[in-house]
């Protein structure tokens, strides 16, 4: 009986392993898959990676009330919202707050003509062809998906970004031209 209990416990642990974050990649895995490899975002909302500098969204968008699209200007005309190039930063920070460490960091980068490598937070699988453009054109605010960024320092994943979440919103906005056909996002 004791052996049976140990066995059951082992099986349970194994099953939990298989469902857990890391191991799911293993059992969803197959050699050479390209669609599969970055399948569902296992991390889900709350993902909050470190960034090269702690960019204070709360100061820029909150205190200073800058428009999101001032920096993420591609959002209304492109599929990706775009992270601003260094020259956008340096537009102000040639004179503003030049004594702060993060500003010194980007000033140095700008001088050396090196880009800053940010870590992507809101990451969709490669088989999803999401575009910011129609969402901005339809008048959705950034906060609806990205959360109250004007109160945050660096970005953390706000929405679950699972397909059910997308579909739920699309179904609610059919009158605004949202579609629920598959090739809206997958092609």
């Amino acid at each position, binding site marked *: 009986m004791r052996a049976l209990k140990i066995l059951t416990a082992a099986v349970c642990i194994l099953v939990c392993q298989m469902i857990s974050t890391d191991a799911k990649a293993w059992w969803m895995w197959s050699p050479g898959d390209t669609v599969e*490899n970055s399948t569902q*975002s*296992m*991390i889900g909302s709350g993902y909050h990676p470190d960034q090269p500098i702690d960019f204070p969204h709360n100061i820029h968008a909150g205190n200073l009330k800058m428009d999101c699209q001032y920096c993420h200007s591609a959002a209304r*005309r*492109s599929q990706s919202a775009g*992270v601003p190039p260094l020259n956008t930063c340096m537009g102000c920070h040639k004179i503003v707050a030049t004594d702060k460490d993060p500003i010194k960091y980007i000033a140095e980068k700008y001088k050396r003509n090196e880009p800053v490598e940010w*870590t992507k937070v809101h990451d969709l699988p490669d088989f999803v062809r999401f575009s910011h453009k129609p969402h901005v054109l339809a008048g959705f605010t950034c906060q609806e998906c990205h959360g109250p960024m004007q109160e945050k320092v660096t970005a953390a994943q706000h929405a679950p970004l699972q397909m059910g979440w997308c579909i739920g919103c699309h179904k609610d906005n059919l009158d605004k031209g949202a579609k629920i056909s598959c090739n809206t996002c997958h092609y």
Partner: protein
Amino acid sequence: MERLEFDELDKLSEQKEVFAPDATFEAPVKNIGKGHLFMAVEEVMPEIGATDLEVSGEIAESKGKGYPIARRDVMRLFSASAILGATACVKRPAEKIVPYVNQPIDFAPGNPVYYATTCNECPAACGVVVKTREGRPTKLEGGPEHPVSQGALCAIGQASIQSLYHPERHKSPLFQTNGHAKELSWEAAFDRIGAIVKGSKKVGIITKGSTGSQRKFYAEFLTKIGSKSENVFTWDANGLYSSISEAHRLAFGVEGLPRLELARASTIVGIGSDILDVGTSVVYHSKGLSQALSIKGLEKGELVQFEAVMSLTGGRADKRHVIPVGSELATTLLLVRALHEKTAAKGSKGARAVIASVLDANKGALDQAYDVIGVKKEVFEALAHKMLEKPSVLVAGGTASFDENATSLQVAGIFANILLGAYGSILNFDKGWSASPVKAGDMKRFVEASPDLDVVFVIGTDPSFSLPASYGFSEALTKVKTIISIQNFPAEVDRLAEFILPADHYLETWGDEEPVSGFLSIRQPAVRTTVNSRQPEEMLMWIAASAGAPMGYADYRTYLSAQWKSYYEMAGAKVDYETFVKAVLRRGFIGKLDTRTVGDLIDVKISLTLPESGLKLVAPFDHRLRDGSFAHIPILQEVGDGMTTIAWDSWIAINPNTCRKLGLKRNDVIRVEGPGGFFEGAVFPLPGLHPDAIVAPRGNGHTDKRSTISNGVGFNPLAAFSKAEDKVTGQPVTSGQKVKLSLVGKTYRLAAMQKHHDIGNRSDIIRTTSLATLANEGREKDLDSVPDLYPDILQRGDYRWGMSVDLSKCTGCGACMTACSLENNVAQIGREQILLGREMHWIRLDRYFNGEVDSPGVTFQPVMCQQCNHAPCEAVCPVLATTHDDEGINAMTYNRCVGTRYCGNACPYKVRRFNWWTYKWNTMGEKERDRNIKALNPDVTVRTRGVMEKCNFCVGRLRDAKLSAKERSKEFGREFRVQDSDVKTACQQTCPSDAITFGDLKNPGSGISKLRRDPRAYLLLGGFPEEKEYGLKTMPNVSYLMKVGADNESVAGSEGTQAPKHG
């Protein structure tokens, strides 16, 4: 693509033809403000036009040395907003976002940037628009207003994206001794070559044919370093250029190729012509021919072809006569005689006298010729009569331009065209002619001059492969002390070279072309160099500088700038020169046609000898691989030959009757023994060949381990030819030599994609009609009025996308397949998989023969997903991986697919493709490599193994167009809909014959709506609605236009008088 005037869009869609209506060149192209403007690369990437030293203020110093400065040594991160897809890795990686340091103006990450440039794969110089994403080209398209390409592009032009990112390009300069290669730094290479050049005054350059400034530049280089400027030897394996140019020199005293405006012709006679296969400018002529042969009211042009081989041009012909190999000249002269006898014949008195004397001189031979070629005199009489009634032209060439009489044939062609009065309207030799990209007899000159040369640069051409070994080129080359091979891809000639310098791909270089005199088509880089390569011209500048004779230009761009001054003056623009250049770069071309006076026909002689009978070898160009310079491009190998559908192979095509006589079966390996040697290959019985013709295409047969794609594929038929030359041009003969065949006793499976070659009496596959039927019974159709239980299915959504394919226009060139594969990241799978029948093309070309084996009719039918409204595939998928959207598109969701493949079975058109493996970019032979990520379209998902895929009407393009329309609506405050001109599918966009039309069926004025109502429209497997017989009732959104026979003659498929019924 940006347009300046949005409001004109609606009007544009009402234009009848999307391409320019008549002679595109003759519309003034001075006006830069109108039409498409793309980006000038210097505006987006300022540093690409400037040297590094300019930036750091050291320019004065460098000018003094006359050194061009390398500016692209450091690959800086020119970057992407997001590292896009397709990176293969097991666990989900934390992706990085790398924004620009200095973002170009008007740039939004995720949006493409377009550059206009000029294709350099053949001397035709089509204008291309390069779509780049985050700094890397992802797709080429024909420049929409460029007069040569007119928006289209051939398969080879499309495929150059794969040669750009080819993983086997040279990675660094190499120094080679005794077959052992050592890597060099660029500095070392230039210094050493400079020293060698300095010590020698006898330097030669072998280069590929071009019409731009580069030949002039090479001559200048040779002069600068103290060598003779005539030592530039041009070589193009396509004998047409030199033979036409030489024939015109003989006939009129001036060189050049007449500009052929086929659109104005009504009857076109091809004598062995290959204008749709290779020709001199395949896209331009396809466009022209398509217009000439299109149905205008109740009339239609006609193409009559006389040929021994089965070319795509012959397949497209309305009437095709099979003549023996080598009898093209006799055929032409017989037609000339028939024309000459007619009173309606045109041409000056003097010219007619010259022609009469030639005809008289060959009277005896001509009288016998009818029997030899097997075409009756009446045929010529009738043809001559018809040709003289309406504007007509005779086009000669093809395999005939590879035999001894190539130039004589062209002279005879000139006779015919003079008698037809084609010069001045259809053939333009005095206004806007084309300079020949090659000089006739250059190779002959080189072989003779080689002992005197110390140094030879071989730039971008590979005569070692494209000339028959018996010609003696390689022997001649080995006599040269130092050979420097400048190639962007490993070539056979490298083996003989001491230095191998990697050259830039044309998408990385500056340059220009002058396809028609007075017309400039510019070439600008669309990407930074992707490997450690340089522009050949700049290498020469470095070498000259290092040899102590600097050329005095900062870089090649500066040299070109100086060359373009004359166009600035011609244009009379009111802006300064810099602004002018910027504008030209954004447009891609500028020009006004040059004019000159051409005299009357000079007394020229032709002597006709009739060909003997017996098996003769013909080695025509493969229409995809040409002389073999494109054999390393996977997609071109994969597209397959149009007529045989064989991919990844060479074959020996023989008339099936001859096969039967000789006891040969398909796939039997035979040895073909010619006067110069032999080769072995597998037999493919091909209808429509002359019984004596043994046709083995050129293009394959590379044995070079450095190129895994082309290595060991097929054979080189040139091995069988003995040395013989065109008497006038010195062009080597690769056609018409007698051969012996013997069985080897092996079989080899040719990877033909199509296994059955007629429609098997299924006449709702290829439907045909005649002009008379159209006149009597033609009325508008409503293909959608099919009795249906679910009448609402066509009413959903704002749009309903549809496509129409004109079977009368399709030539089977394969450009659509190439464009589709590249746009949609379709895998190339290699010979083994094709043998299993696993080709992945989303659009395939079905080729059907009908009629007799000796002179069959040929119909090409492009089949892509028919986007059925009653899709049989959708209902059977257990996991909803394939569904319908409200715009009529059958959507395939790859990531949902579990791979039951039921949809593939349920599809009656068999257009679904399954990923049996995770296909590598080029899984072929033993080697596997990952797909070249850079060559993929970031907007289309890369499919894994185990999922189905298929045509989706380029839904990504549709989405972009719809979003643009929405953006415009928001901006202007009124509703904009997507118009015909806003969106084109990849296949439609590239089709050189305009056979494919795509658009919105909800818009009654759109081109597609009109074509769906056309009397010729029908649905594939849609039965015969006029007899209340609706076939499979899949109700596709793709419709076909029936093939129309000229002269009420029936074409493919009509022998099945009994209509097949679906139960």
